[in-house]
């Protein structure tokens, strides 16, 4: 196992940030911690990268214990925190050189690993890190986290606040790093990114809700979901919520995802109900479940 976490917990004053969490990440796996702000993702990252000591439980990373062998872990992992943490006053090149030196290596030695990413910011290598755009900062931070060729890469919300295009590009980079044999633990609040991981843990309020492959997690969803559409979205949501048999009603892009309390639900009945409420252009169709549906069901 590349990462093994057994029953770890951590509290800050009254708040239990991480509550008895266990999971394992295999070598070469791309594993996702999926959950909103405040779920405890960052605290888990900080414990695994030896920046915080767990109160209970134990954890190993690359075979080393997070408490006893913290120095070895620091040499063997790359960590990209959620908050930009490079030196703003150093240039792109100076930052990279600094991190290489700290880890007793050189840019040249491991250039192959970061090449794909670094070439995109190389034209700006004389620019101070603080003056880079968000996307460029992210690429520099990833380059710095990789420059010592870590066995395990920790990425804490690398795509939060990033536009859909850059997010997509970032995941393409991750997939290519994975092919080079690096184990990756990544966290994200974007549920659509979960589908790109080998396995995921859904996490909320310090607790893991479920761990599995994205496909299996979707399969476990207990209900049939219907896409419902009508001309006035706001009124549609109101009407569906006042339908006595509704189980859940969530807006989902151009549709509303509707589930019914009953197993023998007939969409025709809902159609008639909505017609009686004077909705126009009503459309009801069965649809496929997403990770986001599952997350909302588990987090209820």
């Amino acid at each position: 196992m590349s990462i093994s976490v057994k029953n770890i917990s951590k509290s800050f004053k009254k708040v239990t940030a991480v509550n008895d969490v266990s999971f394992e990440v295999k070598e070469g796996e791309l594993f996702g911690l999926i959950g909103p702000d405040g779920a405890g993702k960052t605290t888990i990252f900080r414990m695994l990268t030896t920046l915080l000591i767990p109160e209970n439980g134990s954890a190993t990373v690359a075979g080393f214990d997070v408490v006893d062998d913290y120095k070895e872990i620091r040499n063997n992992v790359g960590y990209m925190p959620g908050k930009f943490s490079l030196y703003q006053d150093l240039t792109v090149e100076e930052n990279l050189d600094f991190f290489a030196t700290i880890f007793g290596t050189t840019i040249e030695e491991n250039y192959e690993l970061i090449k794909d990413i670094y070439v995109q910011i190389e034209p700006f290598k004389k620019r101070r890190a603080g003056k880079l755009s968000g996307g460029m900062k992210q690429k520099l931070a990833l380059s710095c986290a990789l420059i010592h060729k870590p066995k395990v890469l920790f990425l804490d919300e690398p795509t939060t606040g990033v536009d859909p295009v850059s997010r997509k590009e970032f995941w393409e980079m991750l997939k290519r790093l994975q092919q080079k044999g690096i184990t990756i633990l990544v966290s994200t609040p974007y549920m659509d990114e979960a589908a790109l991981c080998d396995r995921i843990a859904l996490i909320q309020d310090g607790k893991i809700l479920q761990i599995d492959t994205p496909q299996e997690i979707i399969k476990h969803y207990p209900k049939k979901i219907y896409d419902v559409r009508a001309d006035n979205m706001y009124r549609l949501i109101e009407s569906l919520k006042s339908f006595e048999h509704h189980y859940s009603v969530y807006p989902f892009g151009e549709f509303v995802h509707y589930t019914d309390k009953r197993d023998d639900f007939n969409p025709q009945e809902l159609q008639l109900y909505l017609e009686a409420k004077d909705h126009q252009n009503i459309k009801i169709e069965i649809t496929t479940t997403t990770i986001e549906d599952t997350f909302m069901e588990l987090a209820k």
Partner: protein
Amino acid sequence: MKNNNVIEVENLTKKFGDFTAVNSITFEVKKGEIFGFLGANGAGKTTAMKMLIGISKPTSGKAQVAGFDVFTHPEDIKKNIGYMSQKFALYDDLTVKENITFFGGIYGLSRAKIKEKRCELVEELGLKEIVNELVGSLPLGWKQKISFSIALLHSPTIVFLDEPTGGVDPITRRQFWEMIYKSANSGTTIFVTTHYMDEAEYCDRVSIMVDGKIEALDTPKKLKLQFKAATMDEVFLKLARSPSPTLPEEKGVNI
């Protein structure tokens, strides 16, 4: 300004030295509309928004917001709009109640009015238990809901929301949009930026900025037709994706 337009923008431009951040954009937003203002990081959204809320003077062009000119009456604009950003929303070391009182005061509401609004808000959002808690101790989703309500305290004609739901959990994100629908339904105009493309579908109309220009503007339905795309996510990728320097097209993974 036509009666039912809350924003009218014509060839609005902002240059920083020889860099054109916003390049001659033209659009209008109608009363009660939910207008989605999309674009990649660095496309010029924030710069454009800063001009519209009266805190950055345009280089050239014309713009009116809530009936006031951005060049000559930026202070009147500030009084007549609501604004909420993800970065700065509320004071963490004040309680919920103190934040409401503070912002009510800033907008010049009377004590009686503030009290009335506060009671309304507590009732509507179910804040009774947490009204005396420090805002810093609340989950992000709560902060964002409260922050939105505070942006509406002085009953502005339009409210600007800058990535209001980033990082918020999926259930709260939806509750947030229901609040948006509700206020749009009662006539408040909503101007919103987001990186969640499912949220783009909730807007009445959407504009997409690329390199300082508005490259597309229409209802989500028509944009999907125009770009032959199944979702707004596809529309966005088709428009805003700059060719990646290291990656052949077909190697892409799908989000």
